[in-house]
């Protein structure tokens, strides 16, 4: 192959991103964040900190946020970046509600730009997560005048931002080349300049993890994206100049159980539900959880690279994660599962190996596994015998897929158990919101609706005091865990690898060295 | 000395583990400048003899005995490489399937010119092409059609082109294997006339193969009659048609409708031509022969010489002249 210039980070990934358009993108935002500045950013521990803004003040009980931004910042095309651009950007996000951060702008009411360096955001209440932490600031002079429809399909092939890197080349599904923007304020910031010396970032799209691993091995790339196969990752261990790392994950592997209840008639299935009414009995759901040998799942499916699953938030969220003590976890005890079922009267009366309810209904459930992610069918395959072992009949695994499955679960509520994966941003709100009553027909993969949970979820969204909020979040997790509407199988850890011969100064970033919520790595590594 | 002298020739085909003797001790001579007709029913081994003479037997066929002397030299057992200077140049061959003996995707003129250039490497392309034009005109194909493709020719023209090709190397011997069988009678008559004319003009010696006794009568000097891979009678045209000796020859002549003999007078030969996989013992014709005797089933008859050059092999004529002619 050709040779490599120094100061280049070659970054191999399954996806560059879905689109250069930062407003509508829903994939990992790292490249957008390198090109576009944000008022605030996540630091290497995924806590929000100031970025383009030099000052942040709260007023009105936290519902009003006033930012002071750096002056003299220019976009890549030389136009100045002012508070007008921020106002334009934020209003756009608020109005379109598109992209990764659109949802977080929901509580935003108005944006003011009293002068060039001041921006005032008025929220309906104190926001749990200030969306400024993720929203790329786009140049109003380029985007203004486009209708929402235009923006929706805007190719943005110039990618004019004000960030640390600027676009050199973009070939969809192939490669993205970003060059150092040496005029970027961050390189010479007086409050801790970024010390990285990268001249160029080349993010190449590779078709599979195998290729990614081989490319790293052959010194064709410097760093990988997330490697979901523990074997490929493990295979990199011990390769010369290759460092393998494992980070706490933000991912949740689970199956959701259809608990769609008639609100006027508690305990009865909702007329629209196609699920098995037996599943409305928490005893059965709890038994399921007990029947599950999660360590075996982690071992076999994740090759041991993960944590046994319990609550709805993944451990990558740090303090917000509710650690259920080992002894209190309903896990890996088929005997207990059988006991619970026996006690509740679910007994195999006809001796066919499947229990029946006192009314004679068989404990027979349909298990759907999305095939979008390779490992879900694997889980399903292992789960099936575990549940059968305690006297349930599992039909399937139905390996249906989009759009059938999405329609079936999220629209028709016609399923019993559905394996799925959530990946959360570094904040509790998203994951908690999935189980909110508002999400029926949208995000909810359980149709769970609980008044206490709902109240806690709503309250934490606008709770200004971090410690207070943390308590609410944990309490909500406990409530949901006790409902057994979810059976979380595992939290896979994030696996990555990089080379330390071409580039040095790799930092430790919580949740992964690249492609995560922090851009720190790109800004601090240097050529060797 | 005869131009072609075939003596005691034996040719075997192997098929599915069995041996088919398609020529069994066949002998005859062709004098320079003469036209010899080879007649016999289908499967009697006519083509086999022609192919053996040209060294063109298929992979499963082999000359297993006897000799083929051409112009004094032994041909049987010649290496493939040695054949190249014989075929086309000293012996030419015209096939029955006029339609199929031309390469469909090349122009006729080029195909005629090709052997000329092969056999005369010194010749220029233009010269070879001129000679090809001459040849095609010689066989009666008008000049404006020389460059056509074979499919643009009628059957008669194709056969003419086939003759031109066979003649392009100026061979001394022309072997024509049923060259007119597939053609309509009028065209057939004209091709025969063409061959007669060519024979005179080019001093050709011709081995003419046919199953049609009428055609032989028209063109040939001498006739060799073949039955079940063996020659049974040989003589001049007059001998054969005037006073055939072998019962098979007689029966064959009887079976052909003849205007001069009257209607409804032709009689078929009873029975079926024998299979060469298991030929009858003794005289091969005996199962169908109206004059068969006891001895015929057990012993192959020897040759009997009659007046002139006529010879036949039949027990009717005793044992005299046992030796080959």
């Amino acid at each position, binding site marked *: 192959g050709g040779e490599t210039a120094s100061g280049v980070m070659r970054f191999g990934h399954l996806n560059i991103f879905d689109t250069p358009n930062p407003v509508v993108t829903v994939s990992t935002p790292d490249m957008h964040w390198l090109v576009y500045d944000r008022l605030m950013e996540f630091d290497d521990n995924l806590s929000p900190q100031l970025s383009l803004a030099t000052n942040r003040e709260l007023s009105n009980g936290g519902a009003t946020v006033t930012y002071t931004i750096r002056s003299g910042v220019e976009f890549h095309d030389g136009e100045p970046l002012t508070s007008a651009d921020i106002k334009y950007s934020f209003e756009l996000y608020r109005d379109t509600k598109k992209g990764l951060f659109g949802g977080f702008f929901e509580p935003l009411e108005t944006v003011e730009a009293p002068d060039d360096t001041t921006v005032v955001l008025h929220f309906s209440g104190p926001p749990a997560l200030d969306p400024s932490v993720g929203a790329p600031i786009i140049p109003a002079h380029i985007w203004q005048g486009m209708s929402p429809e235009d923006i929706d399909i805007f190719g943005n092939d110039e990618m004019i931002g004000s960030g640390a890197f600027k676009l050199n080349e973009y070939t969809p599904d192939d490669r993205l080349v970003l060059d150092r923007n040496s005029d970027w304020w961050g390189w010479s910031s007086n409050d801790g300049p970024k010390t990285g010396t990268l001249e160029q970032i080349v993010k190449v799209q590779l078709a599979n993890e195998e290729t990614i691993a081989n490319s790293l091995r052959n010194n064709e790339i410097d760093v990988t994206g997330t490697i979901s196969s523990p074997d490929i990752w493990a295979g990199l261990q011990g390769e010369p100049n290759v460092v393998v790392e494992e980070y706490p994950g933000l991912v949740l592997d689970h199956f959701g159980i259809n608990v769609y209840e008639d609100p006027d008639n508690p305990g009865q299935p909702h007329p629209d539900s196609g699920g098995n009414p037996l599943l409305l009995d928490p005893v059965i759901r709890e038994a399921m959880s007990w029947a599950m040998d999660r360590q075996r799942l982690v071992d076999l499916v994740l090759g041991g690279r993960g944590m046994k699953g319990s609550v709805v938030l993944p451990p990558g969220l740090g303090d917000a994660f509710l650690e259920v003590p080992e002894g209190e976890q309903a896990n890996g005890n088929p005997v207990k599962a059988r006991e619970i079922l026996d006690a509740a009267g679910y007994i195999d009366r006809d001796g066919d190996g499947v229990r029946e309810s006192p009314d004679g209904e068989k404990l027979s459930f349909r298990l759907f596994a999305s095939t979008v992610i390779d490992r879900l069918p694997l889980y399903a395959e292992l789960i099936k015998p575990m549940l059968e072992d305690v006297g349930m009949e599992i039909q399937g695994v139905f390996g249906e897929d989009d759009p059938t499955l999405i329609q079936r679960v999220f629209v028709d509520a016609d399923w019993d158990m559905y394996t799925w994966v959530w990946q959360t941003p570094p904040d509790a709100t998203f994951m908690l919101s999935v189980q909110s009553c508002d999400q029926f027909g949208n995000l909810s993969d359980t149709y769970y609706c609980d008044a206490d949970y709902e109240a806690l979820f709503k309250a934490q969204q606008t709770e200004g005091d971090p410690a207070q909020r943390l308590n609410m979040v944990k309490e909500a997790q406990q409530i949901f865990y006790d409902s057994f509407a979810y059976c979380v199988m595992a939290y896979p850890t994030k696996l990555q690898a990089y080379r330390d011969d071409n580039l040095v100064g790799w930092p430790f970033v919580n949740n992964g060295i690249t492609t995560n919520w922090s851009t720190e790595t790109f800004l601090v590594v240097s050529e060797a | 000395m005869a131009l072609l002298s075939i003596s005691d020739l034996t040719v075997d085909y192997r098929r599915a583990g069995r041996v088919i003797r398609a020529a069994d001790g066949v002998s005859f001579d062709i004098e320079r400048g003469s036209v010899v007709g080879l007649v016999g*029913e*289908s499967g009697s081994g006519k083509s086999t003899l022609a192919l053996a003479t040209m060294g063109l037997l298929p992979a499963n066929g082999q000359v297993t005995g006897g000799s083929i002397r051409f112009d004094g030299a032994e041909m049987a057992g010649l290496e493939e490489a040695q054949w190249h200077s014989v075929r086309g140049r000293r012996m030419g061959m015209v096939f029955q399937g006029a339609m199929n003996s031309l390469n469909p995707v090349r122009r006729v003129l080029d195909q005629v010119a090709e052997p000329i250039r092969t056999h005369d490497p010194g010749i220029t392309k233009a010269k070879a092409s001129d000679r090809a034009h001459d040849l095609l005109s010689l066989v009666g194909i008008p000049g404006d059609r020389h460059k056509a493709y074979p499919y643009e020719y*009628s*059957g*008669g023209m194709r056969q003419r082109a086939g003759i031109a090709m066979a003649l392009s190397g100026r061979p001394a011997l022309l072997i024509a294997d049923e060259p007119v069988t597939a*053609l*309509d*009678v*009028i*065209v*057939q*008559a*004209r091709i*025969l*006339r063409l061959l007669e004319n060519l024979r005179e003009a080019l001093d050709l010696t011709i081995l003419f193969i046919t*199953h*049609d*006794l*009428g*055609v*032989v*009568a*028209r063109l040939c000097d001498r006739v060799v009659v073949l039955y079940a891979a063996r020659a049974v009678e040989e003589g001049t*045209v*007059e001998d054969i*048609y005037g006073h055939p000796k072998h019962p098979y020859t007689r*029966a*064959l*002549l*009887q*079976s*052909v*409708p*003849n*205007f*001069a*003999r*009257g*209607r*409804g*007078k*032709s*009689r*078929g*030969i*009873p029975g*079926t*031509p024998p299979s060469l996989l298991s030929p009858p013992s003794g005289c091969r014709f005996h199962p169908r022969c109206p004059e068969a005797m006891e001895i015929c089933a057990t012993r192959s008859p020897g040759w009997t010489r009659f007046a002139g050059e006529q010879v036949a092999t039949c027990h009717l004529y005793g044992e005299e002249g046992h030796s080959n002619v």
Partner: protein
Amino acid sequence: MSDAGNGSPLVAVRELNVHFKRSRRAGQPVRAVDGVDLDIFAGETLCIVGESGSGKTTLVRAIGHLAPITSGSVRFGDVDVAHLRRSELRTMRRRVQYVFQDPFESFDRRQSIFSIVAQPLRVHKLAGSQSELEERVHEALEECGLEPAGEFARLYPHQLSGGQRQRVSIAAALVLRPELLIADEPVSMLDVSVRSDILSLFVRLKQSHQMTLLFVTHDLSVAWEIADRIAVMYLGKMVEEGSADQVIGRPANPYTHALVGAIPVPDPHDVAPEPGVRGDIGDIAGIPAGCRFHPRCPFADDRCSAMIPPLSRVGDGHRSACVRNDELELPAPHRLATGSAG
């Protein structure tokens, strides 16, 4: 011996046209049979002769309802073959039978000789019982010289020689006791040595069954051997028609004359005069104007390209289609020994 001219014909063909559309090429259709008039009388043997592609097969197939009739009429007894009803067709199928040219292709190789010969009887439900069926099959085989019939019946086509197959073919046609037997070049693929036996079989059966025989051949010497009357076709047209002696002995049409003259005769002393005919029958799609034979005819003059000559009388029961019918005196092409056809 010839019943020609006695009463009404068994088959009357009038103004028959059979045209085939050429696929792809938008040009003219192939006029395989073009305005043919023909009578076939009960009990006679009529031979159709002509070069390959002259339309013989098409004509006889049209008569037997095996080729589509474009226009004109074919009356078979009292029915019009062109407009048959289903039931009539079935009856007609029984009255007309065929023998085809290729003895190797005319049978389904998976049928035994017995089932081949029995099939027509089965199709028409003519045999009441199995024993009757067997009896009739054996009878037919024996009649055709396939003895012992029981043994032959058990065999399969590939176990027979060409001549024997053709005999089976005749037997299968015979079991229905047809009035008209149509034989399309039944001997042209057979060896000379077995040909005459098959021909005499035809003659014999025709007489014993009182059939009418419509016989197609390209070989005039075969026609001469068995025909009562001969009809000569050229490029879809009937060009001459008359008794066998007339057509072979004193052909009136230049084409017939050339054809007869070109026949090789197994007699070194009988060398026919040079025909003087050019070219060959070629492609029937490009039909010449006027007399179709005129581009090849040595006697053609200007009139020949101007008019299509009708088939007109030149002698007793002898008709020829030539513009110069009246002026041409054609020499006899062969020394002919006249006699009866068996």
